[in-house]
């Protein structure tokens, strides 16, 4: 049991933040998730891959080759660590910033890039914006833009499993701003009442577009929001891979033991803009970002690996080249793939296409074509 968990009202004002990776590169034995060094290397690779892909996608957007990207710069440990802790049978309900976790769970890079281009191979058939993919195989939900909608769904999924006595848990990602939405309160309340095996993973990255956390809540912490719903909350250093894994595993243990949900508040920072459509200089001071550069989750793991003689510059260079190559190949393939067929627009609205959609499809196919897209 994590010492910092807030379980009861009288314990509520608890600001303790779970940390494992110390400044000197050693690990706090109290919460050490005891990873094999190979596992740490594996996760480091994924964190670096996530960051490189983020950078490349921003460039593609600036070049006008894709329409949009919403990245995870600075939040890689929170995202990769939590997804890694989840077991194969568990399910993840994404927000929109967690492609690194999807790739870690087996979502194919090519399919992700196809989604960024909305082509015929896009898993969602060019119907949704970039970064709104899905992957059932990876036990990954489908991404919706409206804030908060996935939270109650994650609770319901876990609830279904509980009713059927299937041993699985769900983890739902959301940002600090999302805790203001009514869905957060609905989800926490249902999860608390029905003791569902679900994990609420709040990426407290400081901002909801331009609105700082102080405008989302007057609570001292997001973790303590669980108290009123009977859901224990825990605060963790979201830039500490080891700590994130430790608290997520702890939450899974609670699910397994039938103790119900946990709310995790991962303290991290959105180092970039909200998305490629956002310019953070309009609302935040540049020096606010600086201290977070020192806490860069990727640098911290790299230092740890080097200290343990598991990483060096050569490996780093090879990794970067490998990611770069795979990324470039995926983009080339995606860019030369056809857009989805016109008829596909009318598919999947219903399982069996009703008469009015058949009529409208035939009308579109027979009619004049739109001028070339903008």
């Amino acid at each position, binding site marked *: 049991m994590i010492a910092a968990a807030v379980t009861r009202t009288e314990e509520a004002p608890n600001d303790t933040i779970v940390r494992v990776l110390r400044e000197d590169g050693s690990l706090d034995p109290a919460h050490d998730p005891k990873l094999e060094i190979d596992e740490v290397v594996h996760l480091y690779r994924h964190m670096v891959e996530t960051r490189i892909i983020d950078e490349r996608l921003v460039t593609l957007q600036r070049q006008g080759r894709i*329409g*949009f990207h919403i990245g995870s710069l600075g939040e890689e440990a929170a995202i990769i660590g939590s997804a890694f802790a989840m077991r194969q049978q568990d399910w993840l309900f994404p927000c929109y910033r967690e492609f690194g976790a999807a790739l870690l769970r087996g979502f194919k890079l090519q399919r992700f890039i196809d989604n960024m281009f909305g082509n015929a191979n896009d898993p969602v058939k060019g*119907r949704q914006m970039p970064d709104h993919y899905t992957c059932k195989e990876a036990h990954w939900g489908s991404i919706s833009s409206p804030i908060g909608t996935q939270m109650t769904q994650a609770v319901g999924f876990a609830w279904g499993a509980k009713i059927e006595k299937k041993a699985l848990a769900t983890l739902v990602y959301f940002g600090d701003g999302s805790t*203001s*939405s009514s869905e957060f309160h609905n989800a926490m309340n249902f999860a608390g009442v029905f003791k569902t095996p679900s994990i609420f993973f709040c990426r407290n990255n400081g901002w909801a577009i331009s609105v700082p956390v102080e405008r989302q809540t007057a609570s001292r912490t997001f973790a303590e929001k669980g108290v009123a719903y009977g859901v224990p909350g825990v605060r963790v250093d979201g830039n500490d891979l080891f700590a994130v894994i430790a608290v997520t595993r702890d939450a899974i243990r609670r699910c397994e033991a039938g103790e119900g949900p946990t709310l995790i508040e991962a303290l991290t920072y959105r180092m970039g803009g909200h998305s490629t459509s956002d310019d953070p200089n309009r609302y935040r001071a540049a020096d606010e970002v600086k201290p977070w550069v020192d806490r860069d989750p990727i640098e911290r793991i790299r230092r740890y690996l080097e200290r343990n003689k598991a990483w060096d510059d050569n490996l780093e260079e090879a990794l970067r080249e490998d990611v770069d190559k795979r990324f470039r190949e995926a983009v080339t393939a995606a860019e030369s793939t056809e857009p989805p067929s016109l008829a596909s*627009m009318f598919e999947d609205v219903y399982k069996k296409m009703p008469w009015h959609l058949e009529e409208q499809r035939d009308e*579109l196919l027979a*009619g004049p074509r*739109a001028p070339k897209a903008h």
Partner: protein
Amino acid sequence: MPQMNMVQAINDALRLEMARDPRVVIMGEDVGKVGGVFRVTAGLFDEFGDERVIDTPLSEGGIIGAAVGMALYGMVPIPEIQFSDFIFPAYDQIVSELAKYRYRSGGEYPCNMVIRTPVGGGIRGGHYHSQHPESLFIHVAGLKVVCPSNPHDAKGLLLASIRDPDPVLFFEPKRIYRAAKGDVPEGDYTVPLGSAAVTREGRHVTVLAYGAMLYECLDAAAKAAEQGVEAEVIDLRTLWPVDIDTIIASVKKTGRLVVVHEAPKTGGFAGELISLVCEKAFYHLEAPPARVTGFDTPFPYTLEMEYLPLSHRILPALLNTAKA
């Protein structure tokens, strides 16, 4: 007269009314320092401060519910919903509360407020940043619904909406936020709610449109004219209560009707407009009325230009209806 785009004209109206009426407050997500994700409220935070231009928590239900309360208190809130696609968490407050308060309180509590929200597609926004949900609100008794197509009207209609004693839903077509430019008078003026504008005169077929699709209709009308078909294009401006007199007068003149909108066809506003014309001018119709609309599918991402009823789909409808 200064030239402005839609964003500037709306901003101008907000500034003017905030200076004139201290009860007016703007509230919403990111409306403050950033000036809204489309920069429509830019500069107002610096000018009027954070008690009148209020960044709220991320909760549409909270924003509208609180705005209703402020209006009951006697203020004039102008909440912004960042995209009309995100209005649904506030749907209950709008439909059950905002729209019904005056009626259910026997006229004791008016709700004087304007909900501003960008609508429509063609901006690579995919399903959740492209919908045009006007029919869901036109169906709700107690609301007025407005959708301007140019900067002049946007400013005049917004000023009229703010001063209107009833709640107004003000849909801003984001595809033409910056593309539609024009002369905008300085200072105060209003475009009365409930008045349509005949944007192009013609005698063969009446075309009803609003927002961004108006330009597609004008384009199609120009092409139809080359083939001898003169279309009369009416910009509804206020969708509800609609300017029925202008519509009926035009249909009586042309005997033919085409209605265009981006939203899906089934249950869309076009069906209502055609019913109205059938009720009031059936014997003047010389051909079946036509609808050119979005399809009954969710709004797509890659194929958005095939989904939208652009001029290439409007033109054949004009020609066929005129010749039927």
